[in-house]
Structures are given as structure tokens and as C-alpha cells.
């Protein structure tokens, strides 16, 4: 699928998408949180994800799957822009940021596979895919994106070498967000002086995954590090057309936009919960919503969330996932996750000590949104990248 003219998604279609996501949250996700743990009963997660595939929320490169076209980051984004994916992610994140992140990671990786163009995707077509992009603690800086073989500031260490029948992949990818049990990895590597991108079945010889271990938040989404040791892949496992730079830009744009949308959803959930709590809790001779200090916390948060949402939705109609959009997507992630993290910590404050306990789910929201801020491009990294991208564009 190539970029082309796009049409606006109709208001009706958009509403039915949103409704689908709301129903999924109510019927499938809410029961996860009926137990005692704020992260939910994660053992029930696989069946919920299965439902997301069945009802077409989860995208997949497999054409027969319901979400192939209209799921989150499904093929239709090239026609219709990011709007529906951003909305769906936001709505799901109101209930659980981790599940939203799972569907998002699946969507981004699927979308890359669907870019293979005329040549068919290798058989069997992957269903659950995970994106291996990052090495170390941060995604590549612009210098590395443009020249992966040079230390500007750090060259890419995961490499592919040509063999008689295909390629040999070596190296270590870190912080791979995905659904549980992915069958295929989409792996960015350095090939000579450029980028290449491969589909690597997760059970191939030489591929091993380590779980990232205990972490702050987004625990419903799986996170691991993947090692590739002399992994042989056939020629048709390569999904770029000679240079995967465009795919890299696409992955980063979608990733950042989606994470920003998830942050907005988490913060919306927090603000809604705070409104309800503030109307019920009685202190200082009144419902706490009557105290100006509490009003200020909630209203300030809602204003921040509104601002973050506007920033995220400024990407709604965008179907350009090239380097041209990279700076904008990075700015969106930078601004939205920061605004939303502030909003969540302020809304948590309205709960007093109860906000710190697992019972009300506020501490989970704060953990989740804080991870979004640092994951796959921290504010420090994004600021450098945004400056460099703008400078590069000017040149």
C-alpha cells in the first residue's frame, strides 16, 4: 500500500469505531480490574487480546483477519490518516494503558509488514508481530537514522550480511513492546551503509528473547529484549525495497503518535475518576470538589488534557509517515506525554492517600503514563531529534 490521496473518515464511521472500542473496554477489559490488583488480572489477558482480533480492533498483516484494514494502524491509515487509530487507542487507554500499548505495538509492526508492496509476504503470513527497532536505551538519533553506519552519535550494531540464500542477522535489540507470544519480529538492521528491514520468525534458530523484568507500568503489554545470533533468513524475508529508511520513519511516526494518544486516554480516565471521587469524598466540611485547591487540580488537569488532545489530533488527517512528519510526531509525543503525566499526578493528588493505594487505579495510571514519557524516545532524546530534523529540513 502506498501513500496517496486520502479521504476523511465519515463522522458515522468514526462513531461506530469509537463505540466498538467502548464496548470492548466495558465488556472485555473492565472484568480484568475487578480483582485486587491495580494492574488487573493479567492471566485473563490472552483471551481479551483474542477478542480484540476477532472484533477487528487489533490489526494484523494476515489479510483474512478482521482488523487487517480498519484495525489500529491497519492498512486504511494510508488512505484515511491517523484519526481512527488515535481515537481507538485513546478510548482503550482510558481503561488500560497497557492493553492499548499492546494493540498499538501490534498495529505499528503489522503496518510495516503491509508495506511490502507488490511482492507477497512470506508464507505463513505473520499474525502477531513485534517491532525490533531500538538498541540500548533510546531509539536512533537523526544522524544514525540517516547514516546508520556512522557514529553520529552511535552506529547501528545489529547487522545483516548477505549469504548465498538470503541474509544472516546478528545483534541485540532492546525494549521490544509487543503482544504476548508474537510469531514474527520486524527487525531493523544495518546492511552495509543503509537500513534494511526483515521479518524474522520468533522461533527461528538463533533468536532468543529475555523478558525486561519488573517495571513501572504498562504491564499488560509484553516487553523484552531480543537477541539475534547468526539468524538465517531467506531473501524474501526482507520487506524494504533497497533501503528501509522510509519504513524506519513510518515506524517512528506511528509509534510516537500512538503513544501520545494513549497518554491522552490514560489522563482522561484519571480526570474522570477524580471528578467522581471529588464529588463523593467529604473533608473540610464539604465535598472536596467544593475546595478551590481541589478544583484547581482537576480543572488544571483537564485543561492540560484538552491541550494534549488537540496536539495529538493535529495529526488526525496525516497519512504521510515519512521523514517530513518525524519532527511533528516527535513534538506531539514530547508535548502530550508531558502534559498528560502532569495531569495524572494532579488528579491523583485529589484522592489524597487513597490515590497512592492500588484500590482506585490512580497509581497505575500514573505509572503507565510515566512509562510512556520515557519509553521509545525520552524527552531529552526527542528534543535533540526535533531540533536536528528541523535543521535538516531547512538545509
Amino acid at each position: 500500500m502506498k501513500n496517496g490521496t486520502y479521504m476523511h473518515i465519515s463522522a458515522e464511521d468514526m462513531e461506530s469505531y469509537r463505540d466498538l472500542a467502548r464496548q470492548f473496554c466495558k465488556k472485555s477489559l473492565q472484568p480484568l480490574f475487578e480483582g485486587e490488583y491495580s494492574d488487573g488480572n493479567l492471566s485473563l489477558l490472552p483471551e481479551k487480546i483474542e477478542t480484540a482480533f476477532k472484533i477487528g480492533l487489533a490489526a494484523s498483516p494476515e489479510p483474512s483477519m478482521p482488523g487487517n484494514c480498519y484495525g489500529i494502524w491497519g492498512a486504511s491509515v494510508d488512505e484515511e490518516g491517523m484519526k481512527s487509530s488515535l481515537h481507538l487507542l485513546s478510548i482503550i487507554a482510558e481503561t488500560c494503558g497497557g492493553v492499548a500499548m499492546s494493540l498499538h505495538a501490534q498495529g505499528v509492526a503489522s503496518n510495516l509488514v503491509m508495506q511490502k508492496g507488490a511482492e507477497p509476504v512470506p508464507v505463513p503470513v505473520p499474525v502477531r508481530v513485534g517491532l525490533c527497532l531500538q538498541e540500548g536505551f533510546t531509539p536512533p538519533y537523526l544522524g544514525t537514522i540517516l547514516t546508520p553506519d556512522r557514529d553520529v552519535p552511535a552506529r547501528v550494531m545489529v547487522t545483516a550480511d548477505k549469504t548465498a540464500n538470503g541474509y544472516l542477522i546478528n545483534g541485540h535489540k532492546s525494549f521490544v513492546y509487543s503482544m504476548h507470544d508474537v510469531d514474527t519480529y520486524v527487525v531493523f538492521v544495518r546492511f552495509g551503509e543503509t537500513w534494511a528491514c526483515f521479518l524474522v520468525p520468533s522461533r527461528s534458530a538463533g533468536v532468543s528473547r529475555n523478558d525486561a523484568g519488573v517495571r513501572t507500568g504498562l504491564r499488560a503489554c509484553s516487553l523484552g529484549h531480543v537477541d539475534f545470533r547468526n539468524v538465517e533468513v531467506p531473501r524474501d524475508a526482507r520487506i524494504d525495497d533497497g533501503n528501509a529508511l522510509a519504513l524506519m520513519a513510518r515506524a517512528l511516526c506511528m509509534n510516537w503518535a500512538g503513544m501520545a494518544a494513549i497518554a491522552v486516554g490514560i489522563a482522561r480516565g484519571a480526570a474522570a475518576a477524580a471528578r467522581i471521587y471529588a464529588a463523593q469524598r467529604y473533608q473540610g466540611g464539604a465535598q472536596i470538589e467544593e475546595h478551590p485547591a481541589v478544583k484547581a487540580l482537576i480543572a488544571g488537569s483537564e485543561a492540560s488534557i484538552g491541550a494534549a488532545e488537540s496536539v495529538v489530533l493535529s495529526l488526525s488527517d496525516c497519512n504521510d509517515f515519512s521523514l517530513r512528519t518525524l519532527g511533528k510526531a516527535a513534538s506531539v509525543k514530547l508535548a502530550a506525554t508531558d502534559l498528560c503525566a502532569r495531569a495524572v499526578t494532579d488528579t491523583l493528588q485529589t484522592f489524597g492517600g487513597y490515590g497512592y493505594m492500588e484500590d482506585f487505579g490512580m497509581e497505575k495510571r500514573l505509572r503507565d503514563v510515566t512509562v510512556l514519557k520515557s519509553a521509545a524516545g525520552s524527552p531529552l532524546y526527542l528534543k535533540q531529534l526535533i531540533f536536528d530534523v528541523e535543521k535538516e529540513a531547512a538545509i
Partner: protein
Amino acid sequence: MNSDAKNVLRERIELLHPKNAVKNMNLIGRMLADNREMSVWEHDTKTLPLGVRRWRRRALKFAREYIRPLAPEADLHPHDYDPKPILSAAARKGFQTLLFTPPIGSASTLPFLRGTTLQIAVVGEEFATECGGLALLLLAHNLGIVPLLLSGSIRTIIRHFFPFYIKSRILGRPDCMAFAITEPGAGSDVEETEGGAMANLVTTAKYMPAMGGYILHGQKCFISDGAKADKVTVYAKLEGEGIESWTCFLVEKGMKGFSVGRSERKMGQRASDASELIFDNVFVPKKNVVGKLRSGWANNRNVLNYSRPVVGAMALGHGRGAFERCLEFCRRTKLGPKKLIEYQEIQVELADMMISLWAARSMIWQSCRQFRCYQSASAAAKVTASDTAFKVCNQAMEIMGDHGYIHSNGVERAWRDSRLTQIYEGTNQINRLALFEHHMSSDFYIEES
């Protein structure tokens, strides 16, 4: 630039470095310029009175030897570690008896007379640098003791402090204390004057002259160390009266009708419990009344004045812990051929974090540098330090990118720990109101219209 030019430039930079450039000054000029290369920790320690310096050094050593190795597991599995050894070690070294001077306490005498809480504050920072939960485990105990001190009763002080000192310092079997004011229906209300007047309190004490004491009935919640404590200072209104009758009672483990309810599952500071305490017609003998009858409200408000700078110091420790672990990460992690710490954007951020921590420390020490702690300075120190700590922890996580939120790196733990300091001992909103209240007839006076 070729390598010769590079070398020339490097030499020039070296010459311009303040420590070398100063050599061009004359003797008096050199004496007036301070270019000693010393860590901020050392600089700060040298500004402290001698006795406090000693406690700071001891606390640093103790924190690294005892708290650091236990911290990750105690945070992950708070129910599976045994707190007794660390409580005992801290007691033997005198950390649990810093609220008084010899012969019934271990605080250094002269500095104690100039600042009752300074020694606990410096110790609190060191402990919390390694682990918020274990620091709270060790320090919440002081919170339980302050009401005894503030009772102003020499009899109470001697009766409780003396055996406690012997058990702690000499036998290494300390009693653990807790402080209980919060009730499910009254959190901020027991920390703030106007709220207090309207508080919905259930814990009540009924006088039973025939029994020679009081029957305590009610419930407290969120009590730090509540499940571990041997003794708890509990505040209750007298039957038929309001909060103005609040009286502090010393309730001991094993008293009939006294039990521990649920222990909360919290976001951080997990190595210490926050528990519900249930008083089901507990008989408390008269001798366990702390201070005068009906002095509980004043006692409570002053306990908060004494404890808030220490909470601030603990917050500062959380921020410092995150900072130190992040700094270590920047020293050992490479981005391309260079170490992270060699990048300017990282240097600017690290320096900013250190400035914030330094400012918070100055504020805390300033608030502790008088014999009596007072409401506005204590509230200001707590608010500044807790907001600073949370900010610094966030910065540390951001510098470390995806490593920042991984538990084994220890920074996210500090981040979770620090968030609590903006809530307990009065939310930061309530603390701001406390500062305002204190100066209503001075700085914030309102002219009658």
C-alpha cells in the same frame, strides 16, 4: 582539526580551568578563591555542627551497608523479608533513639539543643537515599515517639524513654512505635484547623473511673508501621465531646480488643506497612494517657511541625537516590564512542537535578535549625522537598530512557517512593494552607474592610 591542533586546544582548555587559572593570582587572591575539589556531600557536611556531622557519616555508612542490599527485595516482596535484623542494627547504632540526648537518648547534646530534629533529618536523608520503604520503617517510629516528648511530662519521658533506650541501644531489641491520627473519614481534617472543627471522627475514649482508665473504641487507617508497632500513640475524642477534647493515648500491642486490620497495597515505600488499626473497646489505663487530657489536638499539630522537616529530608533522599543511580548509569553507559555523562545535554540535566536537591536540603536544614520546629517553616520544607524530589526522580527516569522504568535500576523505585511524600503528613495543598495560617496575623494579615 588535526591532532596537533587538538592537543594545543586541550592544553589551553586545561590552563583556563579555574583550578589552574587561579595560580596566576597573588597569594591573598588565591586564599580568597575556593577551588577545593570536594563533593557537594562533603561541602554540606562540613557546614554542620560536629555532632551532626558524625551522625551524617554514620548514617551514610549504615544506609550503604544495611539498607542498600535489602532494598530491591523489600520493595518487591514486602511480606517476605524480616524487618527485625535491620531494626535491631539501627537501634544498636543509636539511630532509633535520636529524639533525646544521653543518658536516655543518643542525639548529640549541643546540636540537639540548637535544633531538635536536625540530626534525625540528616539521618533520614541518608536512609531514604537507599530505600524509601526501609527509611519509613525505621523513621515512622520517631513519629510515634514525638507525642511522648511533646507531652512535656518529665514522668512520661523518663518512664518511656529510659527503658526504650536500654532495649534499643544496649539490648538491640527495640520497641517499634507508630503514630495514629488518620481515620477513614478524616485525613486532611486532622491536619488542618478548619477541617478539624468539622471533622467526622469515630475514635472515642470513654472514662471508666471504676476501672482506672479509658475504653477506646474506633478505627484508624494508613498507619505507617501499624502492623509492626509494639506501641502506638493514638488520638481519640472523649465521649460526648468534639475534637477539642482530643487526647493522646499510648496503646500497646496485646491489649485486649486492639487489632490490626488490612494492610494497604501501595505504589511505593512498600517495605513499611500502612495499616488499619481497630480498637474494639480497648481498655487503656490512666497512666497511658500522654500529656494532659484534651491536649491532643495541640500535641498532634506540633508533632506534625516536628515531623514535616524529616519527611522533607526523606523526600530529598528519594530524589538523591534517583540522582545517584542515574549518575552511575550515565558514567557506565555509552552512546556511540562517548559515555553518556560526556554529552552536554546530560551534564545540564544532571547539574539541574543537583541544584534542585541542594536547594531543598538548604531549606530543610534551615527549617531544623532552631530548638522548636514551627508550622510554616516545617510545611515549607516538606512541600519544597517533596515537589523537588518528585521532579528530580522524573528527570532521572527521563535521562535513562527505557532503562529508567526498569525496577532493577532502582530509579523508578525512588520515583514511586517520592510520590508519597507529596501526600502524607498532610497533602502539599494542606501544608500550603498551614503556612498561610501560621502567618495570618503577620505576612498574610487581612485588613478589615
